[in-house]
């Protein structure tokens, strides 16, 4: 782990230099809301925000990907600046998922040339619950570069080879650091208090879901609310389920596509003959909770949810993922 310091002024300069030789993705506010976008001018980057509406997963995993495209990997490296701990940790989960049986070439062709600069949070946002799922607000590992605001500048940590190379490249703007600044960083992190509303015991939830403690009425209520929009899955930075199809691109071209899927769609598990082992909304919702809060913990020692809270913002059934988990936590 490399530990450095960068002033706020120098960070802006650094980002300006990155734009010249890489594609820079950063938070901007083009229509009054914070979004991640490719950025052309460092001046448009915002630094004070909770989280962007979209997650940086968009640059790592597309809705539709041509699996057989034999184009060479990105000529221009990609730098993502401003990812929060939850989003970075979610991409880490995707990295594990796409390497679980074999290293997925289409995924890693893109992923290997992406460097992520994580911006640690200073407080909990309105929908956030990262602390309950070990998704943040600060990462101890699993990142390239992490910046923690300590006033005039950021305490900078580099935890990967890619990051070390990056630091060397911009060493003119990055300074050495010392014990005083490190203490400031530790204090700032200690001061982030998780609100009571965001608190639950993941261990308890894991047990209660595994032992099916939540009654039928609980699932029935959620099932009645769910509008099967798929939004919670399409916006989730940790979701990766996909299906593979052949898509007609033009009169002469058909492409083998990997397309992101959503497990709240009936077609997700319907079999060719029409039978569906997970046909009801109730079963679909149980499946999602099980997958994210039991199965992925078993397999990757990491929940399939990093507490970013976006799914709460977008649900038109008022399902509220966080509240539902808290209710499961309470069942004995």
């Amino acid at each position, binding site marked *: 782990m490399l530990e450095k310091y960068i002033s706020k002024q120098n960070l802006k300069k650094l980002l300006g230099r990155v734009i010249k030789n890489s594609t820079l*993705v950063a938070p901007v506010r*083009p*229509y*009054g*809301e914070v*979004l991640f*976008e*490719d950025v052309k001018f460092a001046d448009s980057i915002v630094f004070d925000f909770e989280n962007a*509406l*979209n997650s940086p997963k*968009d*640059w790592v995993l*597309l*809705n*539709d990907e041509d699996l057989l495209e034999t184009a060479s990997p990105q000529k221009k490296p990609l730098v993502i600046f401003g990812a929060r701990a939850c989003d970075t940790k979610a991409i880490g989960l995707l990295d594990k998922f796409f390497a679980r049986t074999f290293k997925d070439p289409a995924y890693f062709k893109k992923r290997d040339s992406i460097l992520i600069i994580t911006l640690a949070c200073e407080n909990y946002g309105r929908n956030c619950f990262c602390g309950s799922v070990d998704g943040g607000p600060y990462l101890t590992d699993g990142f390239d570069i992490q910046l923690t605001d300590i006033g005039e500048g950021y305490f900078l940590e580099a935890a990967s080879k890619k990051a070390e190379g990056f630091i060397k490249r911009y060493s003119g703007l990055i300074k050495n650091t010392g014990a005083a600044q490190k203490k400031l960083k530790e204090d700032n992190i200690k001061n982030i208090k998780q609100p009571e509303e965001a608190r639950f015991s993941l261990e308890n939830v894991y047990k209660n879901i595994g032992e099916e403690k939540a009654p039928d009425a609980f699932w029935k209520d959620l099932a*009645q*609310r769910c*509008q*099967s*929009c*798929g*939004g919670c899955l*399409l*916006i989730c930075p940790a979701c990766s389920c996909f299906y593979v*199809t052949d*898509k*007609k*691109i*033009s*009169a002469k071209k058909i492409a083998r596509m990997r*397309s992101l*899927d*959503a497990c709240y*769609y*009936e*077609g997700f598990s*319907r079999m060719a003959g*029409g039978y569906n082992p997970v046909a009801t909304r109730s079963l679909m919702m149980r499946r999602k909770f099980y997958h994210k809060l039991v199965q992925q913990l078993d397999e990757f020692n990491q929940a399939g949810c990093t507490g970013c809270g976006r799914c709460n*913002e*977008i*649900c*038109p*059934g*008022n399902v509220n993922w966080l509240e539902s988990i808290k209710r499961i936590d309470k069942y004995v």
Partner: protein
Amino acid sequence: MKLVLTACPYCGTGCNLYLKVADKRVVGVIPSVSRSANRGHLCVKGWNAWEFIHHSDRLKSPLIKIRGKFKEAGWDDALDIVARNFKKIKKKYGPDSLGIWGSARCTNEMNYLAQKLARAVFGTNNVDHCARTCHSPTVAGLVRSFGSGAMTNSYDEIPQAAGIFAIGSNAPEAHPIIWWRIRTAKDNGAKIIVADPRKTKLAEIADIHLQHYPGTDIALLNALMHVIVKADLHDKSFIARCSLDFEKLTRVIEKYTPEYAESITGVPAGLIKEAAFLYAGLKPLSNIYTLGITEHTTGTENVMSVANLAILTGNVGKRSSGVNPLRGQNNVQGACDMAALPDVYPGYQRVDNDEIRRKFEAAWGVPLSPNPGLTVTDMIIQASAGKIKALYIIGEDPMRSDPNINHVKKALENLEFLVVQEIFMNKTAEFADVILPGASFAEKDGTFTNSERRIQRIRKAIGPLGKARPDWKIVCDISNRLGYAMKYKNISEIMDEVASLAPIYGGVSFERLEEDGLQWPCPDKEHPGTKYLHENGKFTCGLAKFHAIKHRPPAEECDSEYPFILTTGRMLFHYNVGTMTRRTPALNREYPDNFVQINFNDAARLGITNNAACRVATRRGGLKVRADVTDKIKEGVIWMPFHFTEAPANLLTKDAFCPIARTGEYKACAARVEKC
């Protein structure tokens, strides 16, 4: 990747969403959180609204029919043929032999120009659009009851209602993000009364579900009013202060006792009484309705009945209290506002009002016809009769969306010249002489107006595909070739022109729409827009009017040969005739084919099992579809969606129309069902 903020191209809710653009392709969607139309929410169609844009079926070139086959052509050739033919036919048969169909899917700017082309250039008021197939009874009915025909409240007022009365509305499937507000109202403790022939998701959470037969809305509503008046629960001071003709109403509802209504509607008298008492005690109460009541031969009267009920109980002109028709298409409200309608100019100003017409003649520099024109319904009828010779149809597919499509086929075959402007080839376009490729919502700037009267920006995310052009430019090109100059440097100038002529849009301009759109009426540049209409009981027409309305059955009633009531409608995963949703894999995968909903007992009697093939036939035609055997529909009633072009439900429906609004009776005709 960049994100462009625009509005959803599907329903009238008008959700704001960002299109993700990478390498000149639209690759995904996320919702806007700050915009009030949807506050961060989208339905399944909205989330997948990006996928049809680049479909390989997109029309990318003008097409000209040569010896029965379509050949690609350049724009100049295609537009020359269009102009030449309209000129020739106008000269030979007169201006009223021509007609233009605007589009509820296209921008306000395009619709304004389309009706200007019809009126100032063709010289006819034969301009209309697909609002005719759904909500024109709303416009006609509420104009008569209140003076203006639009949703009276804003979406965000719904969660604070103490009561919601929903009749003929399947909001969970047709307006999911308005359903979100109804859901929230319920979570806040509101009481919900639902009147619907089917047990929809909305009916599932209702405190009272009145499951009436299709086509019996008047009897039901009159009975509710009968109980309320007899129990002295009507709002006497509101009625005295703000309405006319109350005695006309009381005279007519006298005979609609709950028992009499039960004999017509099939709803138990006791339940009608309970619903009436519950309704009368809930304030503020939001009345919500859609096509379940408008798509009938009594459509306009059904709407006026709902208005009657609202005036009776003072449930209009207040926050969270009003009459709320949920508009269907992304810009049907706008297309009506822009007057792609035969009897009004933009802003609902009548063409046969001399003073108004003089204003438009001065603005457009030409004399204008004082005679209201034909609706799309009547343009089809008159095309068969040989009076309409040429049509310019933009973004509509009557061969799939009009009732009794065989009669549409005859009409289109009889035309001398047909131009169709579309993004995909469809059944109507197959009859065209010239097909012009339009740009999708992602490929152009402009504005849409949503159901709560909110005018919102759509923004161009990518360039038009192939040789496709933005629709407003195509209309200008045709106009210019016909000798009437339409030279707008940019699209915002068109809205400026609209603002100068239509008082309800008076204060609208592109800059003022940037933050969160504007809700009309917005009469001037300082006005902030209007959240709810008819405030303090001051109706657009002065005093609200009661109307005496009697029950009349649907045009085609059941008999021994055709014993079922066939009613048609929509599902969540598909949209209208499926042009876009059938080309979206995630949506089409959910429901890839047509089906008919039939009650358990009826199915058992006929030997039909779930998912088995059966034959549904009416006097117009027959379809083989699979059966969805369920308890969600009453015995004697069957339901079919109209989304599947290869098994089109409108092959079966009847071309019977509301005499006032000319809307088809999609919701009731007589059918029989047989096991295959």
